[in-house]
């Protein structure tokens, strides 16, 4: 009989669900191979429909009491729990909420909507801190990406459906960083000494040249490969959605270190000047991974 599969989303944009459908015709063999027993986004499922499954693909981060409960519930019912996509693996874009507090966020929202905060029905509690799935429940595998690419998903599925499965806690993507498969690899000079960093907004990026070499902080060197350099192909720098390379403990710190290292200036003021167009290190280096970083969130009184 076919392995039972569940899909669920926590704090995420829904893109991870989308990308399952983006498999298009490749979806059909998947549907042959597995039996989907829980997929609230696609069909009407309720909490009580949850049943024991072989594999649960859980996307999105955890930022509410409800998401926490669902994660625990699904963990309990799944033989294999897969953290699916950047939010599930690292906290993702919602993780940037860790730069503020639940109260700030709610107040801003209520201000914007003119609501008095009394919603008349019990809403789940919004946590101060957004967390990746594995800070709430034990996770068996990770599928990186914002969102994961069809290729990565395909590989992940086949890997998981094999008889001898990959080692637990592993990330189902290549071991090296993106430069390894970057279409512009050859144009990366051996020695970089940038006078300063530049912004995408006010730079015309040469389509055939290493983007980092053009002074744009491209996180390709720090980011796990597997996406086939899609952003690069779109002439945009890598922003790190595939997360850290295997041996890295804090994605942003490593990316920051690498970027700072290839600057040329040596004087105090020259360095400050070189960093002028890099005003938001947190947003630049931790765009997808703040909740999974050492500091996890902004310190608040």
């Amino acid at each position, binding site marked *: 009989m076919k392995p039972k599969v569940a899909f669920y989303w926590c704090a995420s944009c829904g893109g991870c669900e989308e990308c399952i459908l983006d498999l298009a015709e490749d979806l059909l063999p998947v549907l042959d191979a597995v039996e989907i027993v829980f997929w609230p986004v696609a069909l009407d499922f309720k909490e009580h429909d949850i049943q024991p499954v072989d594999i649960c693909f859980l996307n999105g981060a955890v930022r509410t009491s409800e998401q926490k409960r669902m994660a625990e519930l699904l963990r309990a019912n799944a033989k294999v729990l897969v953290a699916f996509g950047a939010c599930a693996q690292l906290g993702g874009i919602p993780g940037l909420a860790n730069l503020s507090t639940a109260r700030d966020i709610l107040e801003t929202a209520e201000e914007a909507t003119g609501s008095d905060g009394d919603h008349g029905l019990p809403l789940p509690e919004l946590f101060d801190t957004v967390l990746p799935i594995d800070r709430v429940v034990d996770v068996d595998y990770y599928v990186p990406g914002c969102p994961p690419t069809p290729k990565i998903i395909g590989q992940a599925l086949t890997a998981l459906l094999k008889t001898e499965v990959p080692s637990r806690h592993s990330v189902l993507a290549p071991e090296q960083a993106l430069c390894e498969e970057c279409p512009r690899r050859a144009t990366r000079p051996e020695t970089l000494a940038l006078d300063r960093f530049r912004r995408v907004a006010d730079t015309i990026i040469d389509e055939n040249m290493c983007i980092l070499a053009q002074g744009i902080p491209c996180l390709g060197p720090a980011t796990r490969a597997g996406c086939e350099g899609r952003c690069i192909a779109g002439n945009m720098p890598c922003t790190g959605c595939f997360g850290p390379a295997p041996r890295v403990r804090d994605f942003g710190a490593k990316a920051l270190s690498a970027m700072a290292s290839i600057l040329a200036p040596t004087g105090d003021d020259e360095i400050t000047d070189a*960093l002028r167009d890099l005003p938001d290190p947190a947003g630049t280096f931790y765009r997808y991974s703040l909740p999974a970083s050492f500091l996890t969130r902004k310190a608040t009184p």
Partner: protein
Amino acid sequence: MPEPFEPKIVAFFCNWCTYLGADLAGTSRLKYAPNARVVRVMCSGRVDPQFVLDAFAKGADGVLLGGCHPGDCHYQEGNYKALRRFKLLQQFLGQMGIEPERIRLEWISAAEADRVRTVINEMVETLKRLGPRKAPVETQFAEAS
């Protein structure tokens, strides 16, 4: 009554200048505050920002980086790399609600024993004024859940 706050400082000292400066402070019997814990690295350029963030995450109240004076690096220019990383890191720490005074990069030569004492004493004073670091995340999550 509660014990007076004693800040914990993790110090990364380069092997050739600052660590020797600290050794000299020892042989010269200079007394200074006991709050700093020194980790020896070969060069300030070896200090991976991960170490600094890890130290803060694990509850350090301050992190002190010590290297050779510009132009004096035993490895020619490691200290410049340290300076660049430091400046960017300090900016990031600010965004994370960690006061800039909590991280300090100092050039201290093998001869500047007294500088070791002054810097550590100063930093301890500053940190006492700032008070303990704000509660680390786990407790916040515990409260939240």
